[in-house]
């Protein structure tokens, strides 16, 4: 059973576009929601994270939007660049020391 459902599986945008990746969860006990970025041949790297007491968090060109009532959160990449081409994973955790990851979104930004 997938604890965190991620969509779409793949995404292609033009340079400068705003790709949006969505995640949904059921467990209302989750209280930490990170996003990871993974380049080929590398391990995932923490990109940005949010806690459910805020509805939005921005770090540079990356923004997380969080909708607690809908149990959904999303990643927006502003002014996307070819260097943003990577696989993105959402995740969720409670203070039980286990993260649950989405299945990943492969993003391609076309120059």
């Amino acid at each position: 059973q997938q604890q965190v459902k991620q969509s779409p599986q793949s995404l292609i945008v033009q340079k400068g576009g705003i790709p949006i990746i969505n995640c949904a969860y059921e467990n209302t006990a989750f209280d930490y929601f990170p996003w990871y970025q993974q380049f080929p041949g590398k391990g995932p790297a923490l990109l940005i994270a949010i806690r459910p007491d805020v509805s939005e968090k921005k770090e540079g060109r990356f923004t997380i939007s969080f909708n607690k009532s809908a149990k959904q959160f999303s990643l927006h990449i502003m002014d996307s660049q070819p260097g943003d081409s990577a696989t993105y994973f959402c995740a969720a955790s409670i203070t039980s020391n286990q993260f649950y990851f989405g299945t990943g979104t492969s993003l391609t930004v076309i120059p």
Partner: protein
Amino acid sequence: DAGITQSPRHKVTETGTPVTLRCHQTENHRYMYWYRQDPGHGLRLIHYSYGVKDTDKGEVSDGYSVSRSKTEDFLLTLESATSSQTSVYFCAISPGQGKYGYTFGSGTRLTVV
């Protein structure tokens, strides 16, 4: 990745043989994890450790065992490798519980033939 090293980076092994993957950290973090990454499944937790000789199972622990005899080393053993264990294995470290992000290693690509 700085502070965390996985070895080997690639391995091909035969069905039925034992295999051990190593994760070494220089960050003195308390928590260490083993994940496997498979297409369509994302990252799934195999085992984790919350201190020397303190380990627990994750969601896909069958067929795997772990050991942590020193803070810096966390070993993952496939007791008798099967083709279903062909995967990319990632080690991760964390200074604390739950609300801290992980630092991942670069992964070990294991092929069981």
